[in-house]
């Protein structure tokens, strides 16, 4: 007699032998109702450096990537912002921890003002929360105004998006001993000065990450009730650990915490989903060429594999919305270039005439 048991009628994708050992389909790993993202959705992303990889794929495929803070088109002649400040929806750069994300939202709403909110140096006023900014402030007033503008743009992105994708990167962080403000990088690494009296190491545990994610989502929904949240975990290992562990063990801890936290938050919240970028790149099925020779940085092949899986579960039709927005932007750019060209013509002509008069 053939015995019956719960595994008997499981679908193909729930068996390792049929879903991983052979015929691995990355899109099947996701447990998300189709479509993950609709054509008209306005998408905002935030997170670690891995999160920035998504954006060109979304834009190339005609999805509406929302940008509320961007370089003025007149500044294309000079180098773009450093690091990831110009890549995301607003200029917040890489956000590695859930606490940093939650504090960013609180700062946008004026509910948290870090005590250590500027570093006054010979080269100008530096922003501890955007330490790599190439175009930093020159004066305290400018720093305050630039920060207000940045937080307003971030708030606009958070409040007007349909989908927010957050890539969890790290559990390790450096924070202010005064008020717990989390810095994106240890003071003194990118810029600023490390002060053991002011700065301390923090390695978040699962409960803390869950708490921060849940608080973030709860407060986000107050300003954007219908927003859908998509969580991913970055597959990129730690560059270094400030614990006394081996960096590989510290990475495993960090990713495990983030992965569990993401799962718990998805299970306990409505309209919050997990997309398995981490599994696609780090699972045993992944080819060795998904990581560069340093076995830390992911390769374009890996990102392609993730994005193929991602796009396979998104709505894909009707390029009209994208095209209309794209053309609007192009028109604006041409008009701005015209104003600049005319200004230059006038100045050049007057210089020539003035020079002829001497």
């Amino acid at each position, binding site marked *: 007699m053939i015995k019956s048991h719960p595994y008997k009628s499981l679908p193909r994708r729930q068996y390792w032998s049929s879903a991983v050992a052979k015929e691995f389909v990355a899109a099947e790993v996701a447990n998300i109702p189709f479509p993950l993202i609709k054509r008209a959705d306005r998408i905002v992303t935030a997170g670690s450096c891995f999160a920035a990889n998504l954006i060109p794929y979304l834009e190339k495929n005609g999805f509406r990537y929302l940008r509320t803070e961007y370089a003025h088109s007149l500044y294309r002649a000079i180098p773009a912002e450093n690091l990831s400040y110009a890549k995301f929806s607003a200029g917040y750069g890489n956000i590695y921890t859930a606490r940093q994300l939650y504090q960013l939202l609180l700062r946008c709403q004026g509910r948290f003002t870090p005590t250590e909110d500027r570093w006054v140096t010979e080269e100008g006023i530096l922003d501890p929360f955007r330490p790599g900014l190439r175009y930093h*402030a*020159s004066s305290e007033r400018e720093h305050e105004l630039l920060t207000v503008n940045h937080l307003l743009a971030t708030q606009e992105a958070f409040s007007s998006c349909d989908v927010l994708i957050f890539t969890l990167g790290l559990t390790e962080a450096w924070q202010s001993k005064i008020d717990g403000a989390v810095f994106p990088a240890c003071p003194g690494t990118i810029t600023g000065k490390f002060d053991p009296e002011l700065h301390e190491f923090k390695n978040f545990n699962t409960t803390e990450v869950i708490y921060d994610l849940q608080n973030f989502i709860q407060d986000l929904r107050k300003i954007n009730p219908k927003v859908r949240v998509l969580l991913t975990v970055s597959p990129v290992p730690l560059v270094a650990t400030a614990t006394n562990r081996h960096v590989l063990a510290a990475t495993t801890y960090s990713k495990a915490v983030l992965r569990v936290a993401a799962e718990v938050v998805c299970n306990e919240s409505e309209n919050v989903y997990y997309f398995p970028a981490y599994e696609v790149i780090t699972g045993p099925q992944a080819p060795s060429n998904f990581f560069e020779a340093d076995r830390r940085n992911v390769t374009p092949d890996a990102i392609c594999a993730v994005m193929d899986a991602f796009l396979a579960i998104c709505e894909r039709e009707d390029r009209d919305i994208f095209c209309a927005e794209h053309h609007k932007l192009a028109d604006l750019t041409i008009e701005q270039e015209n104003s600049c060209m005319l200004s230059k013509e006038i100045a050049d*002509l007057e210089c020539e005439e003035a020079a002829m008069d001497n």
Partner: protein
Amino acid sequence: MQEKTLLIAGHSHVSALINRPLKRDADPRPYLCTIEHSSNLLQGLTGEWPRTKNYWDELVRHGKDKIVVLLWKGNSHLSHYLIAPRHPIDLVASADQNLPINNNAALIPETALIELFTKTSEIDLLVSLVADLKKVNSIPILCCSPPPKEDDGFIRANLHREPTFIRQCKVLGIEPNAVKFSPPLLRYKLWCVLQTTYRKIANRLGIPFFPAPATVKDLNGFLPRNMYSNDSTHANAVYGEIIKDELVAFTKENTI
């Protein structure tokens, strides 16, 4: 001790300081002239436009053992922004940081503007010129450019007389009367940033920077009306006379 001669040279703003009219059909080759001034210390180098290698070579030749006052470029604030961009911009100029801000404009970091103005200042040419001047025992000074004009009516009337402006508007499909200028306050802030840029360039090159004296600014920092030349961007001989007096005083005070 014998005082050093000041040789004034550079781009178009020299026109306010070297009051020696040159007709359009005159010989355009570089020409060393004496500038009338009570100090009897001033000379100027006029010549071809646009400036060529020959002009700068002649400047180095004539600049030997002299103080060379360089009026370098000086219109970047207007050549980018005289006409208002459709999406308005504003900034905080560190030289005058308490001025009002347009909350509806994109706030541009001053450091970005400094990078833009440095890029458009032919900095490589300036670096090599200063190095060549130092080799001939010359003392280069980087000189301010004139503050902007506040009067939009004057600028508009002047541009409407300019056939090139009208023609260019046509090419770009812009109605000349509809051309909107950047607000005067923005032009002033941009000029402040340009002067900050020059100060930084001078520091980098290890040469003095001669800032715009208070006597060439009105109460709001603009070029006084009696110092307007007949265009939107340059100053006249009244401005030039004050700058010459102040330059001579500056070199004495700073024992240059």
